[in-house]
């Protein structure tokens, strides 16, 4: 299927579609950007453990304004909540989870995707009008 024939979904609809496929009990890393929305679409009775690379296991949905804790953010620097059973870890442990094969799934955001699946997540200008594309930390950290 060529890119031109792909149906366009909103970020929220993409997140809901991905969340629908995640089985109970899975440990799932959410990359920065649109993937963080997936945590808003898993019903609390389906126990999925969302991992954020900055050291959270058990990320819950986005907080109501009154629930915001300024010291609790996900890898995309957005405020999040913790679900019951959540734990906090440092970066050495967080990437031991990723590299040690303890995740069931990682959901990555894409800036550019090639037909062969090559992925870039962000870009950086290297001179006026030129830039390099690269993978987000949780992507090339896997």
């Amino acid at each position: 299927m060529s890119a031109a024939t792909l149906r366009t979904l909103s970020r929220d609809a993409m997140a809901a579609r991905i969340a629908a496929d995640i089985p109970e009990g899975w440990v799932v890393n959410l990359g920065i950007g649109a993937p963080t929305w997936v945590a808003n679409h898993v019903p609390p009775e389906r126990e999925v453990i969302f991992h954020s690379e900055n050291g959270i296991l058990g990320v819950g949905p986005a907080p109501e304004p009154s629930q915001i804790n300024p010291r609790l953010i996900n890898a995309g620097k957005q405020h999040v909540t913790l679900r019951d059973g959540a734990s906090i870890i440092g970066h050495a442990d967080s990437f031991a989870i990723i590299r040690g094969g303890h995740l069931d799934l990682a959901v990555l955001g894409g800036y550019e995707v090639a037909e062969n699946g090559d992925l870039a997540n962000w870009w950086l200008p290297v001179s006026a009008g030129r830039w390099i594309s690269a993978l987000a930390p949780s992507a090339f950290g896997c």
Partner: protein
Amino acid sequence: MIDKFVPDIPAALAGIEDGAVILVGGFGTVGIPNALIEGLVDLRLKDLTIVANNAGAAFGGLPKLMEAGAVRKVVCSYPKGAEKSVFVELYRDGKIELELVPQGTLAERIRAAAAGVPAFFTRTGAGTELTAGKETRIINGRLCVLEEALYADVALLESWQADRWGNLTYRLSGRNFNPVMAGAAKITIVQTQHAVALGALDPDHIITPGIFINRVVHVPYGDPA
């Protein structure tokens, strides 16, 4: 009596020299030792190498340090943010060096330095442009690349609570790179939100033991921006 508390920021930062390699804790806006970074700006240092995960971001104290011309090189995993930053402009203009390190490799290179492990093999980045020129080896049938420990002169951390021995706790997402950086440099300096009496911290709840810490300064700054 062991007492690692120092009275103020200049005392905490005493002895840091031009050309120092400095580890800076924090991820996003949380857990960054901003008072210590702003103290570095006042020292008017040159040619610093800053190792900080979000070194390219527009928030926190690091943009001020870069704006002051104190930074020659940045080592990080993610050199930009949602907003335009001082780093991105300096990099575009060729005025600052960048060493891009995958985030797990960055944490492990720092951990290795603190743990006395000179180097380690990892699969991440092996065979890609990112690790060009580094030694590789096939281990258990997979291509791995040799990554060296990242030794530093100074580590700047932020903690939630500290006692006079330098025992530390962190709060929520403020933990991030702070514990792994403790002890990875010749001198580890902490700014703490709360100063507590020796014995007040439950030994089971101390995340970083004080033996990794050299100086602590009490900076009750409130919530991160």
